């Protein structure tokens, strides 16, 4: 790192520093605005705020709907992440360890759900769930939809990790007579742990804030947080509460990030997406 610094002219480094700072300002000004608006007395967050209030925070604390929605979202995101962790890891191991016909097609298929626009995925799944599978839209269909487009984040993180670590340790384990499952449990899994955390965390984040696919796969009863926000952003007296919820979310996002830092040197994993 140090030495690299010498590889660039001081002027260039300064330019990069300034540009980064500017970008961060642009990234955070809208978020700051949301924070300020959560105290804005205006129901429609007129700018600039004429008066400040704690009313929205109080109301948000009382809002059962918001709390239920957060719980639903966390449940959906956890289950969808778990599914994509299993499926993504399997697919990554298959692709990394074997050469077979159609390998490229498989990797394309895994990327497809996230590469195609959400509305296409949304109406396709909606149509399939209702007419082909005869399912009622609900919790299950949201989870299936989310897991489908989350597989790719786990897949990529694990694939990158497997490429880096190679297969020597697993071979050694097998030579010593460990079964396939034991080898996975004692050797492969620990090697992949941070990659799994990074992939899982991204899957969780993707699922947690997904709105378009969810719109088409959620039943009327289950409200994930984005759907709750969508429904409430447009109701009088409710819109400012949405700002409060957003601020709380930003603050709460510390938790998953903290966990990831704790469990793994996850920064490089996170970037591995």
């Amino acid at each position: 790192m140090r030495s690299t610094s010498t590889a660039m002219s001081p002027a260039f480094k300064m330019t990069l520093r300034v540009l980064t700072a500017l970008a961060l300002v642009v990234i955070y000004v809208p978020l700051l605005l949301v924070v300020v608006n959560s105290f804005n007395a205006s129901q429609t967050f007129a700018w600039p705020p004429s008066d400040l209030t704690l009313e929205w925070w109080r109301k948000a604390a009382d809002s059962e709907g918001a709390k239920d929605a957060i719980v639903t979202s966390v449940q959906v995101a956890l289950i969808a992440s778990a599914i994509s962790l299993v499926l993504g890891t399997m697919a990554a191991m298959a692709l990394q360890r074997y050469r077979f016909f159609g390998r490229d097609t498989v990797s394309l298929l895994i990327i497809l759900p996230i590469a195609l626009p959400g509305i296409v995925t949304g109406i396709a799944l909606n149509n399939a769930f209702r007419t082909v599978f005869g399912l009622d839209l609900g919790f299950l269909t949201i989870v299936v939809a989310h897991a489908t487009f989350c597989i790719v984040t786990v897949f990529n993180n694990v694939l990158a990790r497997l490429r880096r670590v190679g297969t020597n340790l697993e071979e050694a384990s097998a030579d010593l007579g460990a079964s396939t499952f034991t080898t996975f449990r004692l050797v492969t899994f620990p090697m992949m742990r941070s990659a799994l955390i990074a992939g899982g965390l991204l899957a969780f984040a993707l699922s947690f804030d997904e709105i378009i696919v969810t719109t088409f796969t959620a039943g009327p009863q289950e409200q994930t947080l984005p759907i709750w926000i969508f429904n409430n952003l447009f109701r009088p007296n409710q819109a400012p509460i949405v700002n409060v919820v957003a601020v709380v979310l930003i603050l709460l996002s510390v938790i998953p990030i903290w966990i990831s830092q704790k469990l793994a040197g996850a920064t490089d994993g996170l970037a591995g997406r």
Partner: protein
Amino acid sequence: MNSAAEGTAARPHLLARFGRAAGGLPRRVSTVLHRHPRLRLGFLLGPPMLWLGVAYLGALGALFITAFWGQNPFTGDVVREWNLDNFRTLWESEVYRKIAFRTLGIAALVTVVDIVIAFPVALYMAKIASPRLQRILVIAVLTPLWASYLVKAYAWRIMMSEGGIVDDLGGFLGLDTPGYGLAATVITLAYLWLPFMILPIYAGLERLPDSMLEASMDLGAKTGPTLRRIVLPTVFPAVVAGSIFTFSLSLGDYITVRIVGGANQMLGNVVYDNVGAANNLPFAAAVATIPVVIMLVYLAAARRTGALENV
């Protein structure tokens, strides 16, 4: 066949035999799997392919079959008679072509804006910032992802209104706010998807060994040429990978354009209006083929750069 798989399969396994004698089912499965790499591949690949193949490809397939059907104007039911009417309407009506090109333009522009902003940030993060600052920056870039999409889009709406923050700041530079419209749509979308561009480029740059940069400088190259000859080619796949996100997310969006897009509409709105409002799934499916075809072409091109490995 991977050499590792072949090699291990050939060796004797005392414990495995012992295990079979003990009769544990998992152990037996394990042994079988171990003996037959193909089976193991099937075991690994089966579930994810079944999931994606059935749940996803099946759904997509069903959707595009629907595009060739029609809707009964009396009952609103889908009529399963093969025809090309939906595509004919799409092709013949100028308005859909106009919307398609507009959407394409917006998606491309958003991608370019994101690349331009993300590259210097990622370069700074990967090659100049201290490891500690690097970690902080990664978190700083990720944090906005947790604030709801809708809330962020509305924040931009407020900022770009008349007399909003953009107006105030622009005043210094003698600029007006672009107001609600296509410019606002591009800015907002670029903002929303920026982290999806910064992270892959950052990861790509991190993988670039510092020694290569040094070598280039040692050989007398200036910053500019080093960037052009060493850095850009290395991060190109990462940029393409990031662009898959920014491009496809923009291509299918219908919410942001409603919030900040003024009177404009994108392909997503057409799909949404037809399926959500008019309940005309066949036509919506036909419209949906446009972004799908665009993305498939895009992915095919991206694969040549090796970018898919970086997504």
